[in-house]
């Protein structure tokens, strides 16, 4: 894009940089605070005396989270979930979005199907009926119970169909002239042009799978089948001291403080984004260079 070196533009640039940097600091500071908490002793954390730097440095919280054998189990479950779930999400979303992005003239039923899809985003049958279906389809206690019921994130479908509509029709028609059908058009023309939106929904799908915990809790019958976030939930629940039985009131606090552990959990939770997002970002930078495709 073209640079404008006027004085007013420079002023704008300075303000813009300052504003955005300030904004991102505002987003990072609490996270740094949480990180500091996760490395501080529980007494200091409980007293609310931890700022942006650990007080009384300790790695106890992480040691506690990592020490159980279920931790490794749960990482493997989550990795499996990501490996199957994210590609399946992307595939199913693409297959739905392409036909729905067509105009009524091309695909007369598209609007009915679009509402059919969006409807599921608005209405859901609730926990018990969904559980019954998952049970009847024999998914209980298997990795597929974490993947199939949520295999179609509707928001991603409509987002993608919206992007697909922005792709110039000429490209498609040119391809059709050359004898390409819908499958070829989708995979040869649409997909290469949709890198930014795929990066976006891929990221969201990844984050979604990584951080989901409730389905693991409900559909898995044994703790060694829990995905990571479900496992983390099970070890850091706030105790309501008033309802503790006598036997537990005594030894409860030798273990670990929920606040430091939960802080450690935040880190493990945001890890994939901290690691993967920078790589995905190059797809946000490019923009579509139509010229080269047009040829």
């Amino acid at each position: 894009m073209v640079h404008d070196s006027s004085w007013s533009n420079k002023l704008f640039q300075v303000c813009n940089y300052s504003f955005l940097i300030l904004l991102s600091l505002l987003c990072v500071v609490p996270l740094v605070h949480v990180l500091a908490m996760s490395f501080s002793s529980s007494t200091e954390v409980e007293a609310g005396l931890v700022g942006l730097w650990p007080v009384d440095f300790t790695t106890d919280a992480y040691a506690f989270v990592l020490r159980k054998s279920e931790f490794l189990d749960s990482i493997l479950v989550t990795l499996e979930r990501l490996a199957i779930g994210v590609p399946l999400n992307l595939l199913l979303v693409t297959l739905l979005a392409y036909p729905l992005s067509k105009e009524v003239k091309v695909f007369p039923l598209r609007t009915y199907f679009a509402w059919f899809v969006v409807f599921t985003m608005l209405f859901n049958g609730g926990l018990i009926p969904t559980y019954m279906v998952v049970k009847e389809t024999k998914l209980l206690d298997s990795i597929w119970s974490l993947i199939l019921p949520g295999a179609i994130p509707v928001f991603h479908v409509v987002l993608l169909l919206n992007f697909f509509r922005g792709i110039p029709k000429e490209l498609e028609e040119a391809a059709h002239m050359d004898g390409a059908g819908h499958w070829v058009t989708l995979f040869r023309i649409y997909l290469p042009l949709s890198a930014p939106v795929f990066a976006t929904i891929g990221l969201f799908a990844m984050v979604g799978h990584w951080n989901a915990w409730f389905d693991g809790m409900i559909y898995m019958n044994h703790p060694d089948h829990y995905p990571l976030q479900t496992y983390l939930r099970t070890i850091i629940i706030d105790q309501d001291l008033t309802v503790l039985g006598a036997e537990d009131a005594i030894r409860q606090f030798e273990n670990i403080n929920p606040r430091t552990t939960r802080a450690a959990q935040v880190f493990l939770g945001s890890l994939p984004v901290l690691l993967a997002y920078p790589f995905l970002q190059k797809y946000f930078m490019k923009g579509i260079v139509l010229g080269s495709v047009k040829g």
Partner: protein
Amino acid sequence: MKRRNMRTLLMASACVILALTSACSGNSGEAGSPSDRTGASNETKVPNNVDPAGKYEPPITVTMARDMPDNLTFPSGDSIENNIFTRSYRDELGINLKYDWITDSTQYNEKLNIAITSGELPDIFNVSPVQLKELAEADQLADLTEVYEKYASPLAAEKFKEDGGIGLKSATFDGKLMALPYVTAAIDGATMLWVRKDWLDNLKLPEPKTIDDVVEIARAFATKDPDGNNKNDTIGLATGQKIFGGGGGLLGFFNGFHVYPNAWIPEGEGGPLVNGLIQPETKQALAKLQEMYKEGLIDSEFTTKTGVGPDVIAGKVGMFYGTMSNPLNPLLQSKEKNPKAEWQYYPIASVDDKPAKPQISYTPPTYYVVNKNAENPEALMKLMNFFIEKNFGETADYTYMYDGPHRTHQYAPVRNFGVTKNVDNWRLIKEVTASGDVSKLNPEQKGYYDDIKKFEGGDLSKWSIADIFGQEGSLSLIDKYVSNDMMLVDGFYGLPTANMVEKNGPLNDMALETFTKIILGDSLDNFDKFVANWNKLGGEAITKDVNEWAATQK
């Protein structure tokens, strides 16, 4: 390519580690099918010898559901499905335990409701009072009357009577016992007033004997810079937003006015039961709290605080209503932060010359039930006998209670501790401290005894145990409450009535909002409106239910 290698490596190393800890249960694959549960149990249709501790020959399989206690740890190689209890059940009772499903405590209710809906109940499971009622009414539970009579060991029967038989009564429908109650140490929940003794001494204040003393002390703590840091940063009386809570709430304060929110008490001698929430004295307690709040004697931000712990640890709090277990949390942390902090408990102060009674409730929080279709309903009683014997009987073995840092007693799916365990421990430790005959102590008690000795020898980390189980420990107050009959027991201990289930939520909500706002400065007259509304919106109906229930208990 690299990424794949990484993953293989991770998998491989994980498997090695898991193999070492043997948590890598090879049978996890077929765990999802509950259908293979019967197996051996079909053959043992004949009731065994009626021996409470008798072994099943051939062994039977019992299916259960389990809520996984939080923060549970296991000795190397053990798991919730394979541990000291499951092995002993198998070897000593001939019972193979199989969990249909396991989930953490927050989702247990949800999963159980799902299981109930889909009609896939395990043989033995635990239920909430409401679930017990619904299951019993839907005739889905086994009648345990005979089982209890025939199989309860003498020791177990004793434990079930520690609450005066309230638990068993509450589980009895039309004369039939439908569940075993989880009898818990309700008396340990009695409130006491924790005060910074060093501040009291700094400011030369008397002990808090009356509510006026409490107000006086709170005023001095809030205004006279008791910590001597020249800052106006101390809280007189701390509370969290749950003002009806016993620990870190204001329940003890209300009790000081002989007001018992949400407990059912006879109106006059032997009169009908009424709810303590709407008694006229409650208004006086609220007036006093409002006055204190206005003057800045109560934490001005209590509405946003979930508890008093953080401020206590940070050294800002002079006084709060708590329980006997507070030395473990947050007082120990408070002492770690500031070794000079001296915390002393006092009986809750009274508004007049009558001693104040902390309120407690013996209503069991959960019940153990047996599926109507289970082959061996008596297995529940046997598991119960076993737990009680191994923890409290002649053959007691401490490894069934604790194994190093591991809370082994939590591995048992069926448990009961009785009401007086902690006070009993305290009494015995006191006796032994005087006599020196440590052989009388069981390993648990010996552990506390040793900790107290270590504390006396200068190990400050044992302060909390010493401050609970020591001669002057917080349990001494519980003992005093018990021996002098200074506790008010909730007069209602039945299962929730239909009206309660439906109306209690809105009523409690209204109470919390009205009371909080009055403390913050709303007109006291709102209390009268509240009483009228409370009655109108279901309170009256509930009162009627409670008294009808009471009539059946006479």
